């Protein structure tokens, strides 16, 4: 926000490149991108580690933990690992590496972090119901022209716009 000339990539170019990546995913693997599913893998192994018997008895977790490979060896988890690496590479090259709590000017660190946690939890629940997040359901759905993709996308952004005013203190 403070830079005169942006150090970021032109957003249309970035969008185009992202579209190509998405197209490659569809062409090679037959599926779009995703992210929240990897969090589900993490959640599953966490539950299994803390309460293994409970995990095996609950259908929701048992179903996800079944199969011969480790839950973190799923397509999504590996892809998200890639996202981490890719982000790291870009951050290193552009010199954007820095520990910080990003927040609006009118809010304290603690408040920001509290809302980050709450926001994450809501996103986790919402992504489970919507069977994907902005990448998995909305973006990938748009590419394959699925009704679900557009529905979810409109629900996410529509809601965002409606409630933005009430949470403006977090950002502006």
């Amino acid at each position, binding site marked *: 926000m403070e830079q005169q000339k942006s150090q970021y990539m032109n957003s249309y170019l970035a969008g185009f490149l992202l579209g190509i990546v998405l197209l490659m995913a569809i062409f090679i693997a037959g599926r779009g*991108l995703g992210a929240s599913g990897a*969090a589900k893998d993490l959640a599953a192994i966490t539950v299994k580690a803390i309460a293994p018997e409970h995990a095996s008895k609950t259908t929701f977790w048992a179903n996800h933990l079944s199969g011969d490979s480790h839950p973190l060896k799923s397509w999504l988890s590996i892809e998200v690992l890639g996202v981490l690496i890719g982000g790291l590479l870009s951050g290193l090259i552009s010199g954007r590496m820095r520990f910080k709590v990003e927040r609006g000017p009118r809010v304290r660190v603690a408040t920001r972090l509290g809302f980050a946690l709450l926001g994450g939890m809501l996103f986790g*629940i919402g992504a489970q119901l919507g069977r994907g997040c902005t990448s998995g359901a909305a973006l990938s759905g748009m590419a394959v022209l699925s009704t*679900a993709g557009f529905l*979810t996308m409109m629900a996410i952004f529509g809601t965002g716009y409606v409630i933005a005013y009430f949470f403006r203190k977090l950002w502006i």
Partner: protein
Amino acid sequence: MGPLIPNGIVGMEWDLFFALFIGIAFGYVLESAGFSSSRRLAGVFYGYDFTVLRVFFTAGVTAMVGVFIFNYLGWIDMSVVYVNPTFLWPAIVGGVIMGFGFILGGYCPGTSVTAVAIGKIDAMVFLAGIVLGIIGYGEGFTFFEQLSVSGYLGPIFIFDTLGITAGWFAFLLIAVALIAFGVTAMIEEKVNPESGLADTKGTSYFIPVTLALLVGVVLIFTPFERITGVGEMDKEELEKVIVSDNHYVHSDEVAFKLFNDYHPVILIDVRSSAEAAEFTLPGSINIPLEQISSRRWRKTLSEKERKVIFYSNGTANAQKAWLVARRMGYSNIFVLEGGLNGFFQNLENNVKPSDYLHESEFAYRFREKSRQMFREGKLEVKKEQTTSDDDQPVVVAAKGGC
């Protein structure tokens, strides 16, 4: 051709390698565009930074156009690609909840990972929140379960839902995206002339915009195949064909061909495998009704030179199978009139015509002979060779989603 891995063209061993590679590209582009910053992401909702809109829309449209083109060239089979299924209510409710998550948290899952990569502590907390939220969802699943499976409509396409062709939808989406880009550029200019636009200023957009519109117009006239290799027939065409009613084949014709061990037809027994095992017309291939749309039989049913004749005990099931096959685009399909029951009835009830007209006399004698042949089992018939589709590994549609 594509999708390469589900179709077995690239081995399954490469699946995770590509996942990693695709992820790296994904993460790199996201971070380079500045999505590793929650304030930048939130900007789309407050009008000071429309990066999210520009990247998201451009990416979606680019990939969609790519899929369209690949589809047209026959490079990708949409029936194997994962098209996320529509569960109406959870899609909406989930989206609303995610909307709250976005505004409160300032990230979405994918962007939060890139932010974590460069050290954003709020993103780390956000990510931890996602995992906690999912644990909460799993633990409280009995509460969510009914909602989560409600309103199932299948893997439907948006253009079908809207009642327009895929091509028109593509054009409209491109047009809407271009308008959105123009409007948001103007808003950004007013709200905050310094930031956001800084990464797009100074370039002339006339050529890309015109190109994009041109592509959109071309797509209006481009067909979109849901199943590759077979041109789907639309409802109106199908109704005309049903009404014209010339897809029946008389049992005499079939008997004659069997009788003479001469095979300008392919006989398909559409009954269950159990029924077909008990008795089937010699040389038939058994494709139970539910399997008609399977990829395995695509070659067999696409036969253009010999008639493909469906039969069942009566006519109802063969007719159903015929409808499915015609709808899928197979054109050379016929139904045995009267089915097996009618077939043998004609032979059994062969009445010697009283007027001795040449043709009916011939028909009478032919049927007498046929009945004899069937009764005495003198029919030796070469078993119809099923086509090489059998040798291909079974193609399992790609799994996807989150």
